[in-house]
């Protein structure tokens, strides 16, 4: 045994461990550079721009206008309303589907998953216009329904809130299902069995065991959908028909119509801050690692 003297190979082994450390750190470097160059710098630039007024000097006018203008407040309310409703409908449609997929054999679930993913891989624009074709006044749905006598006159599905919601729910659904399904698959099926052997009816076993264990996946899915909705542009622009104006559309018009980079930036900054605030509150309300660990 070596006491005070140098232990065998100690310095060399320590160096080896250090080198391994650096190598691992090196793997993250491309990502760090990318994030730095493509995200942090532009956002910082936007942030600065938002404090520059029309005359090119430092000013709060972009933010003042937002607070004072009813139009802006309405846009924010619309953005949140559409986002919350889309998230809600996604949960109502997605949870039962994810649950069904998690309970059937993996082979069949994978086939269902293809059904979820194919629209996901199709261009956003294509899907949005497809809905327009289906839902417009002389679209497929209205024509068929009227011809069959189900409707006396065509219903106005698009160029309003309902059209926007239909399109957005359809586009956002995979973002909810993917994390939720992964979570549900990881739930130990024996837990539900244990609950029923201990006397729980199937409904009771679901609500007391399965549902709480699926919460991390559900919350992750809800957050992804909600945050994506806040900044969504294409679908509300096409299916809303100019009547549903969300924050991203206002940002676009500020730049394209008015060349007002400052106003657009300020809107972007507010949207970003609000989004981060929501994520922060959500993470405080439910600590995501509280659930879901397998015993």
């Amino acid at each position, binding site marked *: 045994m070596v006491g005070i003297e140098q232990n065998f190979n100690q310095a060399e082994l320590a160096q080896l461990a250090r080198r391994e450390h650096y190598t691992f750190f090196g793997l993250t470097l491309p990502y760090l550079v990318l994030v730095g160059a493509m995200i942090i710098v532009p956002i910082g630039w936007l942030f600065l721009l938002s404090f520059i007024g029309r005359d090119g000097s430092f000013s709060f006018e972009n933010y003042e206008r937002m607070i004072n203008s009813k139009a802006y407040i309405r846009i924010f309310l619309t953005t949140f309303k559409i986002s919350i409703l889309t998230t809600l409908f996604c949960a109502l449609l997605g949870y039962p589907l994810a649950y069904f997929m998690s309970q059937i054999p993996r082979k069949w679930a994978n086939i269902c998953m293809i059904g979820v993913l194919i629209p996901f891989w199709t261009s956003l624009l294509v899907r949005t216009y497809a809905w327009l074709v289906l839902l417009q006044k002389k679209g497929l749905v209205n024509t068929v329904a009227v011809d069959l006598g189900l409707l006396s006159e065509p219903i106005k599905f698009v160029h309003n809130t309902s059209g926007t919601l239909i399109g957005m729910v359809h586009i956002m659904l995979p973002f909810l299902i993917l994390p939720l399904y992964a979570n549900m698959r990881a739930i130990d099926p024996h*837990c539900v069995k*244990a*609950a*029923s*052997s*201990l*006397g729980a009816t199937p409904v009771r076993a679901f609500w007391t065991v399965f549902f709480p264990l699926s919460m991390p996946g559900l919350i992750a899915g809800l957050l992804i959908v909600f945050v994506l909705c806040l900044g969504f542009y294409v679908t509300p622009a096409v299916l809303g028909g100019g009547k549903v104006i969300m924050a991203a559309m206002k940002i676009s018009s500020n730049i394209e119509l008015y060349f007002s980079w400052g106003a657009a930036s300020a809107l972007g900054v507010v949207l970003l801050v609000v989004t981060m605030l929501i994520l922060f509150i959500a993470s405080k309300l439910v600590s995501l690692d509280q659930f*879901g660990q397998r*015993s």
Partner: protein
Amino acid sequence: MTDSSLNISIKDVTKTYGDFYALKDVSLEVTSGEFLTLLGPSGSGKTTLLMVLAGFTNPDYGSVKFGGEEVVLKPPHLRGIGMVFQNYALFPHMSVAENVAYPQKLRGVSKEETRKSVEKALATVKLQGLGHRRVDELSGGQKQRVALARAIVFQPKILLMDEPLSALDKKLREEMQIELRQLHDSLNMTTVYVTHDQKEALTMSDRIAVINDGQLMQLGSPNEIYQRPKNAFIADFIGESSLLPAKVKGGFATIGSKKLKIAQELKKDGDFMLVVRPEKLFIANKKSRDANYFEGLVEDSIFQGESQLMVVKLNLENYGEVSLRLRLPNGSTNVGELPRVNEKIILGLKIADSYFLEAANGRD
């Protein structure tokens, strides 16, 4: 204590998956308060049978009665059984106490009474004071104890256990075997225990039901199953054994041209197998009348801690070469005095220990 347990009566239970018989006309009576083990290799149907008892698998046909009442059509939550799963199946979103209180909550037991029963159950499994812990803070052995406490807290009359100790390391497993057995003796619930570990089955059970290929092969006390296996599969599966094909005629058995004495009452002549357990063989210095003897060469001699294992090669006339294993408990013999590798050795097997089983009961 009959009111704390129920007997189980299984009749003609059959379960198929396509062409595959997971269970084939299994009939079995478990008496009230008994500790019965379903023992078999993986894929033998033992777990399927347990799942039929629990209600998670419906058989194609057959009857399962708890205390005379038919339950085969009842869903699991109405069967009133306690069940312990292989991977514990604790609820990770609940604390230890909440896990154990779960069945009480379902039964609408008052808060005060629930608290008391949870404390009692945790004390029974030696986990008192750990109720506030999170499930993922527990060791494997502790998780198993929580699962057990949860299964017994509502005093079920029947307790089912599906390989509950298989995830634990050997030492802890052996401790838990004895503890589970003691727990059963104090609670007295009818217990059906599934395992593939023959030693575990021998240690814990009142009776063992050996299951293979979806069929009940033998039902008996650990002693019966070990000493008098009904067929070659059981002789091979439970304990170590060498099987030597023998012909029986006129009260004697012959292996090749070697003649062996028989003490057992065999109903007929014909093809049999001699079951040789390694611990029943002894090194013979001189021959006596009450044993059969085999001469051979020591092929290998291995120190295994509590015992010395020797592999002995016999060269039997008109039969060929065959290896027998001999196990000598450490302490009774001085290793230095044992025959060494390649030295001659004479093995003795008491006539009373020379057990023959009918070759027709063989595996093939």
